């Protein structure tokens, strides 16, 4: 289930298109500068802090980090523990090593930073890791490499398709630079404007001193720029009204289209269940917990008895002892005979019928096509807009998975007689109302 996402590049929202266009423009202008700056930073990090920059060490560190740390830490996000971006600049190496090896010891030693950290994170103990100094160093090296890399945009639509870059020219430009670049551009434009105004005034002054101008030219020279008059002019008013109406209309239409669209909806769940841990790191097949995904309409949220298949043994994460408070909640549910009330993330309206087995079992789609990089999500959010346009677009573009399915044999034959294009869902009536509405 968890392969690199194969997904059809469906229509992105216009906002994205605009942004992409701007970015590519800016990127073209400033690429040289940015590249230079990055090189400079990477070079300056180097030798003096004792953190290796050997790619082999970094990849070893990456493996260690992903196996052991991602349960609680992320680079950019605060998870169970703090985000580890720029950790090498925040804390000295010896402190990091001793904290990883035994955090409680550091806290008990009265280290101000450690105590503050401990209190800040609700006195959650960090598991002690029996790592060598070199191993910890490699993790820090990895973290440093990640930190100095420009942060990847958090926008879910920038996922790649079959290794190709999805976001056109804009990709590679870190989102936090966009504002800086735009502000820079504005300043440049303002300067240009200033210069032009200066030139005009200098020229006007010069011409005004000349006597040999005829009346018409004098009028032009003495004609003072009347702002009020211009603003009251029909052309300007018409233009302004047009722009205003267009903007209002555009935002009203955009707004209306987003009514009921919950893309990005990421509610807090009663249990801090992480798909990143279960599906990503542990690589548990989606179907293991979502038992209905190949057989029925609903994929099924697993019942606690499924959780218990593993959690009777695994009672804590990251090697910690005792019962994790989150896992305790499953035990409580069973003990108190009280089902767990998850918050629904994906809410299709009742008028639309969607069947998981049709798409997963028959269509052979990956979960990620609609749910995004679920194996990367600590907290699940709604990846796709789940609008009818989104559904239909996919039905238009997706080929039917007819392989080894006798249901389609005759249909494929008939289709091939008439068309050279592969048979899409649309060709088999996939856009008809009663396929989803009844």
């Amino acid at each position, binding site marked *: 289930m968890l392969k690199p996402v194969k997904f059809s590049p469906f229509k992105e929202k216009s906002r994205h298109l605009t942004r992409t266009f701007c970015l590519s423009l800016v990127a073209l202008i400033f690429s040289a500068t940015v590249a230079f700056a990055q090189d400079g930073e990477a070079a300056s990090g180097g030798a003096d802090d004792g953190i290796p920059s050997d790619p082999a060490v970094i990849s070893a560190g990456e493996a260690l980090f992903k196996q052991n740390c991602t349960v609680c830490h992320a680079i950019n996000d605060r998870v169970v523990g703090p985000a580890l971006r720029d950790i090498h600049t925040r804390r000295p190496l010896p402190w990091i090593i001793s904290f990883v090896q035994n955090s409680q010891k550091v806290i008990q030693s009265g280290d101000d930073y450690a105590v503050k950290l401990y209190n800040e994170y609700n006195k959650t103990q960090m598991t002690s890791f029996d790592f060598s100094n070199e191993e910890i160093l490699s993790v820090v090296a990895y973290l440093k490499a990640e930190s100095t890399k420009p942060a990847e945009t958090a926008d879910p639509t920038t996922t790649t398709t079959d290794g190709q870059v999805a976001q056109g020219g804009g990709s590679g430009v870190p989102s936090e630079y966009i504002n800086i670049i735009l502000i820079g551009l504005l300043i440049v434009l303002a300067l240009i404007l200033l210069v032009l105004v200066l030139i005009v005034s200098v020229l006007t002054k010069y011409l005004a001193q000349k006597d040999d101008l005829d009346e018409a030219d004098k009028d032009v020279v003495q004609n003072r720029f009347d702002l009020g008059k211009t603003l009251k002019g029909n052309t300007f008013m018409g233009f302004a009204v047009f722009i205003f109406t267009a903007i209002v209309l555009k935002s009203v239409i955009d*707004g209306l289209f*987003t*009514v*009921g669209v*919950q893309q990005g*909806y990421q*509610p807090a769940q009663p249990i801090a269940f992480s798909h990143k841990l279960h599906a990503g790191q542990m690589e548990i097949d989606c179907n293991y917990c979502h*038992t*209905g995904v190949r*057989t*029925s*309409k*609903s994929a*099924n*949220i*697993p*019942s*606690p*008895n*499924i959780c218990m298949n593993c959690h009777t043994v695994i009672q804590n994460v990251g090697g910690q002892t005792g019962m994790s408070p989150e896992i305790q909640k499953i035990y409580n*549910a*069973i003990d108190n*005979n*009280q*089902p*767990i*009330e*998850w*918050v*629904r993330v994906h*809410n299709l*309206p*009742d*008028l639309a*019928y969607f*069947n998981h*087995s*049709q798409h997963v*079992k*028959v269509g052979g789609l990956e979960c990620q096509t609609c749910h995004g990089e679920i194996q990367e999500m600590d907290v699940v959010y709604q990846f796709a807009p789940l609008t009818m346009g989104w559904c239909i677009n996919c039905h238009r573009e997706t080929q039917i998975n007819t392989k*080894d*399915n*006798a*249901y389609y044999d*005759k*249909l494929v034959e*008939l*289709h091939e007689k008439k068309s050279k294009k592969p048979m899409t869902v649309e060709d*088999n*009536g996939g856009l*008809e*109302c*009663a*396929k989803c*509405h*009844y």
Partner: protein
Amino acid sequence: MKENTKIYWKGIEQLKNDPEFVKNADKEFPEYLPISENENGNSRRDFLKLMGFGVAAVSLAACEAPIRKAIPYLNKPVDVDPSVANYYASTYINGSDYCSVVVKTREGRPIKIEGNKLSKFSGGGTTAQVEASVLSLYDKQRLQNPMKSGAAVTWDALDAEVKSKLGEIAAAGGQIKIVTHSIVSPSTKKAIAKFIAAYPSTQVITYDASSYSGALNANLSSFGIRALPSYNFNKSKTTVSFGADFLGTWLNPVAFSKQFAETRKLGPKKKEMSRLYSFESNLSLTGANADYRSPIRPSEVGLYVGNLYNLIAAKAGAPAISVAKVDDTATLTKAANDLWASKGSSIVVSGENDISVQTVVNAINNLLGNYGSTLSWDAPVMTKQGDDAMMDVFVTDLSQGLVSGVIFFNCNPVYDHPKGAVIGSSLAKAKFTLSTSDRVDETTSQVTYVAPDNHYLESWNDAEPAKGQYSLSQPAISNIFNTRQAQQSFLTWGNVSTSYLDFIKENWKETHFASQTEIADFQTFWDQCLYNGVFEGDATSTMSAVEFSGDVNAAGTKIAGKYKKGTGLELVTYESIAIGAGEQANNPWLQEMPDPLSKVCWENYISMSQSTANELGIEMKEGFTTKVNVKAGIGTVTLPVVVQPGQAAGTVGLALGYGRTKAGKVADGVGVNAFALLSSNSEGIVYSVAGVTIEPTGESYRIAQTQTHQTFMGRETVIQEATLAEYKADASAGRYKPMISSYSGPKKPNAVSLWKGHEYNNHHWGMVIDLNSCTGCAACSVACQVENNIPVVGKEEVVNRREMAWLRIDRYYSSQGNKEDKSMEGLSMLEKASENPEVTFQPMMCQQCNNAPCETVCPVAATTHSTEGLNQMTYNRCIGTRYCANNCPFKVRRFNWFKYHDNRQFPDNTAMNNELGKMVLNPDVVVRARGVMEKCSFCVQRIQTGKLNAKKQGRRPVDGEISTACATACPTEAIVFGDMKDSNSRISQLLRLSATEEGDTEVKEERAYNVLEEIGVKPNVWYFTKIRNKELTDNQA
């Protein structure tokens, strides 16, 4: 259609061409819009306020969507997967009605009942009542706890008190009676036997609301067996029924309809069909399907039976009995000739609850040699065991205070027994009274203790509807309320500590498991039986050697004494198809189901012939009628009149099962209780009353009658029919074959089109409806209602012509006559035409036209055509212009005038207006909002599910795997649904589809026609002509 003088009409109004009818017929919707909920009406300001509020609400709603929870099972049962339906075989037992069923459950909730095809006894079909029974499970009026004197108690407390009280009575030798309907379950009988063992002075009193006591006693004296033989209508070439509505309510209508329809199906290889004669007073379903029907008075039934005996006896050389001659000897003689001609393959039945009449009927069957062929004692039917005489003794004993303890086992005699009033008033004389009823009904409200039984869908049980044919009930849901199976109660009170399930298992182990040799392990055997729902034991029986030994002469003498040609008005009661004897009266689906013949719902009424109405000066038009006072026997009731064509002159009809006072909110106060008008004596309950007087009250009354609501505007080719002789000569007899003039000469309507037509590569769904095998039982229309979440609108809205049924059964009367004939004007014409009309039933639903007129007029493309031939209706796109309904030639589109769900204005729509009722809704079908159009979808949810299952398994769907709710429910297989692209499907075979040179398919079956073929809408529903087994001369007489 060939030129004949037959005229068709849907109701008296149409026959009269009443101006009101003409006005309404012109309109798709009634002109007025009485939808203002307050009398003042809504002003423009209100509208603006509402709109302002609406805009604000929308913008607020847009800000944040409500948080919706997803709650998984705590411990998911292995077999239950959310959104996947499970099916459990079970047995429907209601009163003494029986049907082997399969229960569809979703997430542990039963949502649909279907017939069990494995059952020999019920044959795989259902009735309207069986279909509707799933809603009775979710009836809020059911008792939620055991009760004592009207207060809830615990089971332990109840058991302790019951045991001590019964113990006291038994120790003193006081009489304890268990009053019950016929018990079909052997294990229940054994459980009661355990109870009797603990309290030896106990006696079981069995009665049936519709009694078969006379027939049972007659069989006892004729054959020495107190049971009914198994009837094989499928072997009968000539059937004569004297008031036994075996297609509607009598004994086992599901199987009988199937058997009867087998003899009525025609095709290229089968050109013979049976003939049915019916002698009856009310126009019943059987009478409506009869080839020859003779309306008779109830006081003459005995005479007719006796005369038939004499006619047969004359042929057989047996001595005649002395009974008076009857009027309609012509039909009777014809019947006798036919019976004699098909000796050994004919059946004579009577619904008369009279031992002498039934003895003579037995004698006729005996003379005809029917026993051993069409009537068999191999597997006697055990569903009816009531003994009216015992019940009569019980009532007397109770009223004299001789009975100390009474237990009412799921019965309600205070309501459904003629002596109910006496029982009710005498109950106080018994020291101990208990009922196991599921609600505080008329009887239960007068007893001290109530030990509420489970619904049958919550119960374990077994049944033996016919000897050697067993079936099991299993719970499809855990108990909704704190109820307990009555059998478990009997075991508990009888000091048996095993659970009833173990008790049944033990019984089955001892008897059925031991009787078979195929399966060695009991658990496997049990699982197999549970899976199948039925266990058909060893078929060979020793009972077939029984000889007729009834005393015909004595019976004849008795008949001569009892049956006299009647004078004055006689009242004949009957079980209605919808409500039956009233057990499920609180089921709104059944209340809103129009009676197949009168098309009246939400009421019972006095049905009378046009001539009687004329005599009484009663006029009925467009549902406006008069209430009358009916004085019959000991009671007087006031109720509306319905002029019913075919009602025997001098008789009036009245349905049983209505007039409940304590059944629940839906049923209470609907109609009047006809049981209270009847009389009962030691010889049995008499279901007719002589010497009835009727006085019109002059009070005008509006009755909810759907018959003329949708009409075809005088296009009289909607029903196409012929006689058997005509059919034999020309298979396309009766067909109307319109031709359209075109530049290249006349063409078939299908050949002329503005459109290019649709291309169907994958599937092409279609339906065939055989008018010859459709009996009009309405099981399909209720099945449709259950499957598709169709709301109940209540009487008022039916009056407003806004019933929501997607599938209606049009009932057409036809008679010889000519509207243009000036000599036959006015009431005399009416009288003659409606005296004894022919009846045709035509199930009518969306015809899924290939050139659908509705599709072209929808301004928002909410109704479109699919690549599988379906005319799709998209509710979320519909804006409610109703153009489509106006443009539909079949009038099958229904508009949601209101929000019927979660609306206190529609309390009768219990399936959508309370938490419990909503459990019955089909989760795969949307509950429609106000202001949208809806119609038959060919059960697209079933099509989609079927296709998906096939795709998942990588194969094409198998014919029969995908079927609509109506086709599945149909006991006679009159409705066949399937894929016309699949050349092996039943529908393709029936239509004899064959490819034309142009690559199209052509229907070769000559009987198949599209309704309104001439308008060229190309429906995907095909009807097969109705063929009557009548002599040509009779038809034109």
